[in-house]
């Protein structure tokens, strides 16, 4: 393919460029290969074959991590929180996005800037008062507490993303539906949601990724061992098994699997979601 970019295209420089890119990708891929193959090695094989692929792969570590490492239990807690938070966040942001993009009322612009502006309140500033407030509201150590906090943290960017996308939906479409006697909720469900689906799906994927990966709020809000999320479980246990690298690798691999699956399925969408706001 012809170069469409910025560099000059002699054959030598092409090879040099490919070599640089190859080296950098080895640096990102090899740790992942190391993670997967270590997770599949028995303790004895890990001692003799440290860097290669497993010659006698075993699922033993994965089973141990799942049951004794309690990855299974923690993963279930994470699924409950993340699925609920992703779903609620889509609803909250779609409602707000529709209002901001297609309804006219006094204070609309102020509400948009206010929601976006709340990002100024850094997480570090709120964790301490928030912790006390959740305690008083009896939301500490209950999944619903973390769900509400995640939805809140996801709101400014989510509203921003959906409002910008919904604005590009022609007013005529919305007005035609209103002429047919549809209420605002019906317009949202029948017109905005189907047409705006790409943006909503992108938002859901983006939220899934950071919520699944998040540590600070999960650690502070769900402290009880019985409700801990997967990342909290791994981070807190970290000290206990430091010598058993294959077991650690197995836990990490299990915890990364949902994220890796989403990554391989939706790479393009994730990239688009994350770069929204930077590229106009």
């Amino acid at each position, binding site marked *: 393919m012809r*170069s469409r*970019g*910025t*560099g000059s*295209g002699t054959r030598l420089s*092409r090879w040099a*460029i490919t070599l640089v*890119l190859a080296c*950098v*990708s080895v640096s990102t*891929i090899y740790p992942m290969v190391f*993670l997967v193959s270590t997770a599949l090695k028995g303790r004895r094989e890990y001692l003799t074959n*440290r*860097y290669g692929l497993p010659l006698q792969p075993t699922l033993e570590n994965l089973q141990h991590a799942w049951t004794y490492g309690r990855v299974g239990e923690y993963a279930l807690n994470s699924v409950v929180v993340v699925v609920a938070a992703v779903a609620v966040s889509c609803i*909250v*942001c779609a*409602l*707000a996005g529709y*209002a901001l993009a*297609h*309804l006219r*009322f006094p204070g609309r612009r102020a*509400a*948009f800037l*206010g929601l976006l502006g709340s990002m*100024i*309140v*850094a997480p*570090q*500033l*709120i*964790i*301490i*008062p*928030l912790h006390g*407030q959740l305690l008083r509201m009896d939301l500490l150590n209950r999944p619903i507490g973390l769900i509400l906090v995640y939805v809140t943290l996801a*709101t400014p960017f989510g509203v921003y993303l959906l409002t910008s996308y919904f604005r590009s939906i022609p007013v005529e479409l919305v007005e035609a539906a209103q002429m047919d006697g549809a209420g605002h909720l019906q317009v*949202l469900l029948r017109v905005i949601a189907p047409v705006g689906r790409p943006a909503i799906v992108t938002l859901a994927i983006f939220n899934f990724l950071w919520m*699944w*990966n998040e*540590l*600070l709020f999960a650690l502070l809000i769900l402290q009880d061992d019985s409700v801990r999320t997967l990342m909290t479980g*791994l*981070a807190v246990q*970290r000290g206990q098994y*430091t010598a058993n*690298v294959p077991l650690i*690798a197995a836990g*990490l691999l299990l*915890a990364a699997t949902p*994220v890796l699956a989403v*990554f391989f399925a939706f*790479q393009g969408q*994730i*990239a688009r979601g994350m*770069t929204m*706001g*930077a*590229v*106009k």
Partner: protein
Amino acid sequence: MRKRSRTDLMRRLARSGAVAGYLFLAPALLLVLVFRVWPGLQAFPYAFTDWTGAGAAAPVGWGNFAEMLRDGVFWAALRNNVFLSLAVPFWVLASLALALLIHDRTPGWRFFRGAFFLPSVLSPVIVGTLFGAILRADGPLNEGLRSIGLGALARDWLGDPAAALPVMTLVILWGIFGLGVIFFLAGLAAVPPEIFESARLDGARGWSMLAGVVAPSLRHVLEFWTVNLVVWSFTSLFAFVYVMTRGGPGYATMLVEFQLFQQAFEFNRMGYACALGSALFLLVFGVVLLQLRLMTAEDA
């Protein structure tokens, strides 16, 4: 009369969508007010007390802030934060360089793009724990070094006071540079190819191309990404520190956000931690404002 005009007004508002507008906005506004703005506002008064998290809090005036100025740990943490933010230009340039190389449609560019992007979707907990295991004194990196005769270089990478912070910075860079590549690729895709083409015909090469053509066309993305990284270097590295070093050895990798966490939830010094939070807030306030201005540039 008055009553009728009010119902008229209500009807007009309803038709224009005002009632629906406020109703639809209510959940978002309510959540942000209750769980973000209100706790954020409370942090400032707490910063002037000796609150321990339980019982009453006695006011201590500017005591917490005075203590902060004398607190060697705070200064060590601040120095480390500044070190990390000074690394930002290198993070930006590394991502930009890789994006430009990929943008040239080098064979296999799709693969490279995916390979670079992969680490940035992993949790800092996973990245930090994985590298924590790899970098241990008896870990695979050191064994590899010894097996190729470079045993003299082997050390406890995250336990060595001189090496810990630079090594942690590299791990964080590993976890994030690919997202920068994606940002710059998105930016490059939005630049009409003719701009690069005509600059090349005019004889622009190498640095003159980079500084004269590429950087100006990517100005918005460059600003956005740089500002994001600066904010992150002060506020989003908690998980890396928590799983890799816990601020050690000594205070070699202590960051302000981690000190805040320790003061609040390990030493129960909520008041002092709120003072640290307020300081952190003021430190990044200007940068966050810039971030928001960039996001709303078109709407303003």
